[in-house]
């Protein structure tokens, strides 16, 4: 019997969009029963939100004060306790899932399948390697649990409209005290979240300064878009690291992606190759970004971007 437990990422107040994408991946496994686990301090609301996701059989909530904010070393032993009833445990390939799921896998004595991009069978998956330069088909051992992260950019969120039962569970698990949360600094922004946004405007090294990124912000605000960036722009200090798109940043799949002043290194392109439409604006007509762009415009971004922002009225 294939039973998949999806580990929910959430803020305590809202479910992360990655959860419905992990469920979408889980529904690709034939005949799987899919449950969602929500671990937090007080998660009745988030649990109810998870119960609406189509394809979900049951939501399990585990409420402990230590679970907020989420710390991998504290969540992992609880997930291991929950996992005894399941053949598969899935999490998102976000920072939350990448931190947590390998710890779960090791405690369960298995390797993790990282970044599932397609499901070929209950133990057969495809995943990207070498910054997306190759795709490898892998087969997990059939006599062990499968622990995996889901490459969320490869999946459309499962629909809502469900009303799965929510069950609160008490786990008798000893939790470590060796890891303590100190604080979190988030970019205070009213703009959409990079992972969830339908439109993303990204700037690269060619913006040449933090001040010039104002051009990117204005265009993004006109479009209602999230802000992205290349590694070069982050390394230069023009934008904060959480905006970085690519192999070692965020992997995204918006409907519309603007790459402005970004040459298009393979490490960047791997983060956007599932985008609907890619627009590239670059002064170098030889820039590799044009090889993957649906619409390309060669020219000076410092005149094009303000003109475009105005034209979008």
């Amino acid at each position, binding site marked *: 019997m294939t039973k998949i437990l999806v580990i929910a990422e959430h803020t305590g107040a809202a479910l992360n969009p990655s959860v419905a994408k992990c469920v979408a991946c889980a529904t690709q496994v034939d005949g799987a029963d899919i449950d969602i686990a929500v671990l937090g301090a007080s998660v009745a609301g988030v649990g109810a939100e998870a119960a609406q996701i189509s394809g979900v059989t049951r939501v399990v909530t585990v409420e402990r004060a230590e679970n907020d904010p989420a710390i991998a070393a504290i969540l992992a032993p609880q997930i291991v306790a929950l996992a005894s009833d399941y053949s598969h445990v899935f999490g998102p390939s976000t920072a939350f899932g990448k931190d947590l799921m390998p710890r779960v896998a090791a405690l369960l004595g298995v390797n993790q399948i990282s970044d599932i991009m397609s499901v070929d069978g209950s133990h057969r998956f495809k995943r990207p*390697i070498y910054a997306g330069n190759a795709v490898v088909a892998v087969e997990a051992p059939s006599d062990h649990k499968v622990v995996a992260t889901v490459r969320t950019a490869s999946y459309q969120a499962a629909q809502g409209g469900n009303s799965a039962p929510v069950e609160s569970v008490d786990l008798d698990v000893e939790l470590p005290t060796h890891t303590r949360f100190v604080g979190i600094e988030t970019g205070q922004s009213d703009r959409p979240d990079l992972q969830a946004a339908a439109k993303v405007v990204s700037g690269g090294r060619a913006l040449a300064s933090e001040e010039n990124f104002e051009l990117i912000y204005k265009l993004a605000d006109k479009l209602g878009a999230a802000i992205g960036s290349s590694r070069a722009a982050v390394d230069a200090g023009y934008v904060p690291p959480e905006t970085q798109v690519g192999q070692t940043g965020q992997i995204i799949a918006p409907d519309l992606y603007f790459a402005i002043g970004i040459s298009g290194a393979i490490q960047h392109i791997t983060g956007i190759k599932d985008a609907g439409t890619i627009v590239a604006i670059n002064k170098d007509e030889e820039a590799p970004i044009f090889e993957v762009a649906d619409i390309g415009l060669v020219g000076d971004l410092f005149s094009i971007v303000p003109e475009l922002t105005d034209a979008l009225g």
Partner: protein
Amino acid sequence: MEKILVGLKRVVDYNVRVQVKSDGSGVETDGVKMSINPFDEIALEEALRIKERGEATEVIVVSIGSSDAQQQLRTGLAMGADRAILVESGTSVDALTVARVFKAIVDRESADLVILGKQAIDDDNSQTGQMLAAVWERPQATFASEISIDGNTARVTREVDVGLETLDIDLPAVITVDLRLNEPRYVKLPDIMKAKKKPLDQIPLADLNVDGAPAVIETSFEPPEGRQRGIMVEDVAGLVAALKDKGLV
């Protein structure tokens, strides 16, 4: 603290555009430039800085693989590591087994801190550090962009999707490092000469009595689905028209 262990993985160089072999049996690595995984270089740089601040006494670089990995360990020694350990294996070793090997070395050396790259740029798995922390039953702080040591505690700032998170972790512990933590130093010629005299121990994998983990089998390789090159527009008016055409604005 006394000892910091740093993992150095030998990988295809960052600048190589990797090609899948025509028969789908793997990727082409013959005659391809090999280097230290870039994240591991950052890990080593950070360990060296901790030692240079007087907060650790010894930095040991560790690699697991064929004898070719001696080259990467020698580079690590030239950067400033005190000694190197090569755990020799003729075949590739899965992440959980690597974590168990590191645990065996940690026990031998009584290491206080292990610093690893957040991922290797070949398999892009991002799991070894977390797995080592699990099998060691110690704290993990992944994707570090700032590390400070205060006695038996490390304060680590982590790059997460919404910004920067800070954790305090008790030592011993595992830290995996992100790009922004530091810029690794360049190796100078005299350091390369000196590195030749530094100790490099070779231990056959079998001597560590580590249980092999159930392997995930890689059955076939293929190139990614490419995107088609689209249209070029002449000006902003053309761009807006093309976007309207697709119903995107």
